[in-house]
């Protein structure tokens, strides 16, 4: 495989990634489960193909550069659901704002403390503490606070899966029934995947979750500057 010129490796990398993503969308439709989450499923396929054909992550770099070109604009576009659903949030600004702060600060502190107690390395602790911000923002925060962006990305995706699949069950058990609260909790902790779950629960929950995801990322990126250095030590 080393005989392949760089351009061919890049083309292959892009083709494999797009193919894996398309496949993951079909897989999710047919077998909906946390394991068929597009990011997880596609990543597994791409990694398997790259390892199988002897292409290193460094060789995949140019393909990554090309494919993530639109990630910035896509992140900016998150302002659109934020703006569309702002009224529901601002109508409940005190409860929603306090819940948002409690949730996003609480999850960061608990993640950092648990990581420390369990003796995880400082790099992993920094990367895991910010896992409730949406991926594109979390990877940028990781770079700022000296975490590892690739690790953060996977922690964010796993948090999305965990929260979206177990969150509704947990809230049913403990009597969190208000649609605003349910949407807020799902969007704050499990960002995009939580928002999708909240949309399935109802329009009000979905709208609140969409705003909570955006504002939660703002909250996490500001708080991380002060909280993470204390936690990662």
């Amino acid at each position: 495989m080393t005989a392949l010129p760089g351009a061919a490796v890049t083309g292959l990398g892009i083709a494999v990634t797009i193919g894996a993503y398309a496949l993951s969308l079909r897989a999710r439709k047919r077998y909906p489960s946390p394991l068929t989450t597009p990011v997880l499923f596609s990543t597994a396929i791409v990694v398997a193909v790259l390892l199988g054909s002897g292409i290193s992550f460094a060789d995949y770099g140019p393909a990554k550069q090309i494919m993530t070109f639109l990630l910035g604009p896509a992140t900016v576009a998150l302002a659109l659901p934020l703006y569309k659903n702002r009224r529901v949030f601002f109508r409940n600004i005190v409860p929603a704002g306090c819940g948002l702060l409690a949730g996003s600060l609480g999850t960061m502190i608990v993640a950092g403390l648990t990581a420390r107690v369990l003796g995880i390395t400082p790099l992993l602790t920094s990367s895991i503490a910010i896992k409730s911000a949406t991926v594109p923002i979390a990877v940028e925060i990781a770079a700022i606070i000296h975490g590892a962006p690739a690790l953060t990305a996977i922690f964010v995706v796993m948090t999305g899966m965990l929260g979206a699949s177990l969150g509704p069950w947990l809230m049913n058990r403990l009597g969190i029934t208000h649609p605003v609260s349910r949407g807020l909790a799902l969007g704050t902790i499990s960002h995009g995947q939580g928002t999708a779950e909240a949309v399935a629960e109802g329009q009000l929950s979905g709208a609140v979750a969409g705003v909570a995801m955006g504002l939660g990322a703002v909250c996490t990126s500001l708080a991380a500057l002060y909280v993470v250095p204390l936690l990662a030590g």
Partner: protein
Amino acid sequence: MDEISDAMAAGGEAVIVGRAAGHSRVLGRLEQAAIVAPQLAGLWALNVAGVWAVRKAALPVPGNLVGMLALYGLLALGVVKLAWFEPAGSFLIKHLAFFFVPITVGLMDSGPLLLAHGLAIMVVLAVSAAVGILLAGFVSQWLLTRPRRRRAEP
């Protein structure tokens, strides 16, 4: 005979309709591209502006976050309209997960690290997600349902 000519006429019509639909589908795609391209350019420009502002001001926050807040501000001030970004913005958000894949593929370089700490990582993720959900849920629900502010939701 009449029946046959009717059927032929109907068939002919179907062919024409089919052709027209095919034609307009091509035009539609071009039209779509012409609409989407400037929208993507607008979102891209906002992102670049955000990244530039953060670097210029030496702020320790993500540039794309500043770009997002800038777009929100422009929408709120009425400088730009929601419709200006519409098909492109929704498309990007719908397929946001695709753009994460090249990043998470980077895990192939940190396999041993993840394997060594796999169980601890799962515990950290599960505990912190549960606590966060409960905090956000209980705090907001308590404030929403306090007796004096009890109010029906829209």
